[in-house]
């Protein structure tokens, strides 16, 4: 096994990445990166105060070092689904986390679609924050609960029967998810602000639980979206998808792209299927610093070509797309974050820097974790990717340890089927 993939070997060792460009302060700068015990170091402190020279050198061969990708919306992968795999949820979390890690996603938010209350109580405890490592796989930032306080008319693939309103205010939220679950396990929730009781609960929900709130699956008018923003919803869930279409007099949530708010963030599924490339470009040009790339991938992500039974759905995976068996209907996203980053550059003419930041810095800012994640700043976690100039991933490090196919073993739910 590669020594850098051995946590015991790298423990206490000062690792210097050389021959690289760092994504730092919106620039690619030629510099070194120093890490120790999973944390990016302030090189001058190491040098002048600790009088230390590096123990290990990693030659990046001229590559780019980026923070690891962050996917804040992932429903499942390799056959596992976070919303339905009740019986093997721990197995699902463990395997998906590792699969994500090997795809360069070093932290993510496992996402539950609208579910009945008891499911939240059963599943959320398994989706709470968990550190990343080569044993655990990608870091879990905390769960994303998408719904059920969303608009039935924009339910997407969510189950109509479990959608609800919040006429009793904050108590409906606590009744649905459990207040403790929100505090302990949930990082953010997607709601539709026009659903009765939601708008008036937002501030209290944020204040009492510390979660981030996003708006989506919604028919909010632009005024409603603006009011929601002012109450603390600074994030939009998959821009364009499951919301009112753009109209010049009422552009809806899409119209928030034209708002003057610099601290607005919007998820965007940049797979070229869920959002037409031109739309991605429009969003990017309107508000480049707010773009947050999400895969919104479901259980068929990473599955080999073939037929599968996912929940009560029969699907066929064929060359990177997943169809309901026997039809041409797309059954969900199987996007891979690395591909989304490349497509973002292609669709929008964004620079490499901007595309990488849309998969690293912006999601971290949207979830208010940029002190630890999404940057190469001193004292941030050493979750790193080494990329070539085509933005193909060459090497992956989690918490300062290299993740390789040999060091990170996982299996898909359909191991036998392949």
């Amino acid at each position, binding site marked *: 096994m590669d020594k850098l993939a051995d946590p015991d070997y790298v423990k206490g060792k000062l690792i210097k990445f050389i021959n690289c460009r760092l994504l730092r302060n919106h620039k690619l700068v030629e510099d*070194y990166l120093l890490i120790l015990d999973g944390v990016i170091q*302030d*090189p*001058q*402190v190491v*040098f*002048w105060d*600790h*009088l*230390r*020279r590096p123990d290990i050198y990693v030659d990046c061969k001229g590559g780019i070092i980026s923070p690891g990708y962050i996917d804040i919306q992932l429903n499942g992968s390799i056959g596992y689904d976070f919303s339905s795999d009740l019986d093997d949820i721990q197995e699902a979390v463990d395997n998906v986390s590792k699969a994500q890690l090997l795809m360069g996603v070093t932290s993510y938010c496992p996402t539950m679609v609208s579910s009945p209350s008891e499911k939240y109580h059963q599943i959320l405890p398994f989706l709470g924050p968990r550190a990343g490592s080569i044993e655990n796989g990608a870091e879990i930032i905390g769960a994303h609960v998408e719904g059920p306080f969303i608009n039935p008319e924009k339910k997407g693939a969510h189950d109509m029967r479990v959608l609800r309103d919040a006429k009793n205010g904050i108590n409906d939220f606590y009744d649905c998810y459990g207040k403790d679950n929100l505090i302990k396990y949930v990082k953010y929730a997607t709601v539709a602000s026009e659903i009765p009781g939601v708008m008036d609960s937002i501030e209290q929900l944020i204040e009492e639980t510390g979660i981030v709130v996003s708006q989506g699956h919604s028919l909010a008018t632009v005024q409603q979206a603006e009011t929601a923003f002012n109450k603390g919803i600074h994030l939009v869930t998959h821009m364009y998808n499951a919301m009112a279409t753009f109209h010049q007099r009422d552009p809806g949530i899409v119209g928030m792209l034209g708002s003057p708010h610099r601290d607005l963030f919007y998820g965007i599924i940049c797979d070229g299927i869920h959002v037409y490339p031109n739309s991605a470009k429009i969003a990017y040009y309107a508000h480049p610093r707010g773009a947050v790339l999400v895969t919104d991938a479901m259980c068929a992500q990473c599955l080999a070509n073939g037929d599968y039974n996912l929940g009560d759905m029969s699907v066929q995976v064929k060359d990177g797309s997943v169809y309901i068996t026997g039809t041409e209907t797309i059954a969900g996203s199987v996007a891979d974050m690395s591909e989304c980053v490349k497509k973002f550059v292609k669709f929008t003419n964004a620079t490499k820097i901007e595309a990488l930041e849309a998969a690293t810095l912006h999601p971290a800012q949207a979830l208010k974790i940029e002190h630890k994640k999404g940057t190469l700043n001193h004292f941030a976690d050493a979750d790193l990717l080494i990329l070539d100039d085509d933005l193909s991933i060459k090497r992956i490090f989690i918490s300062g340890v290299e993740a390789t196919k040999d060091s990170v073993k996982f299996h898909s739910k359909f191991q036998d089927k392949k």
Partner: protein
Amino acid sequence: MRLVIRDDPVAAAFYTANYVKRRILEFAPTAEKPFVLGLPTGSSPINIYKYLVEFNKAGELSFEHVVTFNMDEYVGIPRDHPESYHTFMYNHLFKHIDIKPENINILNGNAEELDKECLAYEDKIKSFGGIEMFLGGIGPDGHIAFNEPGSSMKSRTRVKTLAYETVLANARFFGGDVNKVPKLALTVGVGTVMSAREVVIIITGAHKAIALYKCIEEGINHMWTVSSIQMHPSAMIVCDEDSTLELHVKTVRYFKSIEQVQEELIGRENIGLKGSISSLSKMNFTNKYV
């Protein structure tokens, strides 16, 4: 004193860096007998450091047994301030090379007792048996380190108030705000530099032509502190053509002819690094001019 003239600043830096390399290699430093090198900051040495880094990366020169003493540091700005000399040295040289951090000495401008810090610095230099080679730059007013015009030629390491001109000149590094520029610095003295067994000064650019002229063609004068180099037994100035603008043609030709004679008549292989002619018998006397 030797004066080496090169076409442009890059060539002058390349010469100087090569010279430093050859001196260190010839010295063959060990842990017990390290090479003690005095170092400057400023625009002049940047290219020299760039070449030294290249030599180090190419494996041609190791700093494993090199001990360094820097000339100066501002008082009262954080060590990691972008304009601190710690940051300068770290970014231009130290982070790129294999030097041991414990072998580096830079005055601490945030020391509780600045005078003590300066005395300790001199003692530390002494403890290594003095500085083998002090590399330096020069200001347009002929200053070396922060030894502004009027500094004692015998001065040692101490706290120094910066000249108004220096403060104005430095304002560009502090957002154009004169009030943000440190007014005090710790600096080695002229005497500290001149106590080194060898002094090498790099001077480039037309704006330093008057300083070069004042320092080598006129008398020793504390208003041009680098002029003290005239009394040093083993000193060399490396400059570019532009900086010789104020020199007499005679001066420039003389120093160029020295190199020419050495190259063409004596042969580089017969000349020691510091210009000594090592072996008369090996010289090529067939040349008609000798």
